[in-house]
């Protein structure tokens, strides 16, 4: 799905060669500050490498329309961003951004069941707890069904038990949809439970 060759980004990342397989669950691990989030941002094309080439579906990212690419490869940031409005508004805002037709209530119910968010849809989203916001942001991405899910510490605000069961459901759904998941995580349990492919990033020597 992704091929990285000679990618350098500031003094943070230096990757000789990296392949990320299609329709697999890839976990990116490594100590804090090693550049895991930077790698996800590079894959989402939110930033460009200083050197080297990143290919998505055998085509360099520089040849992709960045907006079209991001609609195929969606990222969920570590600190979930909540937009103004209700839980429902937040779940549906992605459709506006992607210029896609909205889904019906049945789909929404399905997504919030997967992330286990039992909240009133009309509630102001800013009133949610950190963990609930994280699950809301996850459901938002899930509803858009991108080809690649780039998840940055998706369960960092959840307790171990919830994290395990939410991620289990997420992985199941991603598999059912035949999509790819690339997840940055510190959780050994998540890596052991779900990883089919592991990338370990080592902190660059200063």
């Amino acid at each position, binding site marked *: 799905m992704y091929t990285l060759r000679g990618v350098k980004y500031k003094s943070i990342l230096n990757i000789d060669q990296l392949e990320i397989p299609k329709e697999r669950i890839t976990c990116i691990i490594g100590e804090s500050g090693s550049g895991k989030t930077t790698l996800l941002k590079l894959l*989402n*094309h*939110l*930033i*460009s490498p200083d050197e080297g080439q990143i290919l998505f579906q055998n085509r360099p990212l*520089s040849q992709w329309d*960045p*907006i079209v690419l*991001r*609609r195929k490869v*969606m*990222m969920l*940031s570590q*600190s979930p*961003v909540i*937009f*103004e409005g209700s839980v429902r508004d937040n779940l549906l*805002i*992605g459709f*506006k*951004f*992607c210029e896609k037709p909205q889904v019906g209530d049945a789909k929404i119910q399905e997504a919030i069941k997967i992330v286990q968010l039992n909240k009133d849809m009309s509630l102001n989203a800013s009133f949610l707890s950190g963990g609930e916001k994280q699950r809301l942001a996850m459901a*938002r*991405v899930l509803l*858009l069904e991108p080809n690649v899910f780039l998840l940055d510490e998706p369960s960092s605000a959840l307790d171990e038990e919830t994290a395990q069961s939410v991620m289990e459901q997420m992985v199941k759904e991603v598999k059912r949809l035949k999509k790819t998941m690339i997840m940055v995580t510190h959780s050994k349990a998540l890596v052991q439970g779900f990883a089919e492919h592991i990338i370990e990033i080592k902190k660059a020597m200063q």
Partner: protein
Amino acid sequence: MQANIDLSIWQMTAAYIFILVLIVIVRFKGIPREKEILISSLRMTIQLVLVGYILAFVFEHSHPVYTLGIITIMLIFAINNIFNRTILQLSSEIKKVIALSMTLGILASIAYFVLIVLQVYPWYEPRYIIPIAGMIIGNSMTGISLGVKTLVEGMTTNKQLVEAALILGASPKMASEQVVKSAFDAAMMPTINSMVGMGIVFLPGMMTGQILGGASPVIAIEYQIAVMLGIVGSVSLTVLLFVQLGYKTFFNSRSQIKL
């Protein structure tokens, strides 16, 4: 009824004495601002005397070069004033957008106003164009200054929200929609407020000037309404151009945020 009062030297002196009394009071109250009041009063006097003589010359020797020259100088000063007034660091790209929006918005507004609304003949008649251009440029300058501040601060403080929209597949335009709307509102607010209070809270400067100059209040009102509409139109146009082009300076060609 007197048509107008030509102020004598003694009457002018009385006006300055008013300021001197004020300076004494300010000093007595221990507010260290007497120097500023004195310097700004002197500066205003010199500027207006010079402008008075320049305008008298230009009005007598009506020529398109003089009219266009004065509008250009006013425009350059206004653009420069926007750059200097903003405390925030402005990129060279955003400075270009400010200059372009001010120039296009103002010239289009002046042209429409002078040629279609007032139907001034000849088109370069400085007696009409220069005062109207002054009002249009001044108000647009205030509007854009506020728009620049709101846009730059909004993009900086809402960077996370803008970025979150981008990673969900939004175009830069969609991602910065909220910031752009706030910048437009902030820029339009003084003009809208001044329209609402006009005639009730205060009498606008141009109308006051015409009435003092001997014109009938009814004629003064006609001009004031027309000029006010011209100002609103020009501020909207310049600010709209600025925000529509300005947000783009925060993104590169790969739709990545540059902050």
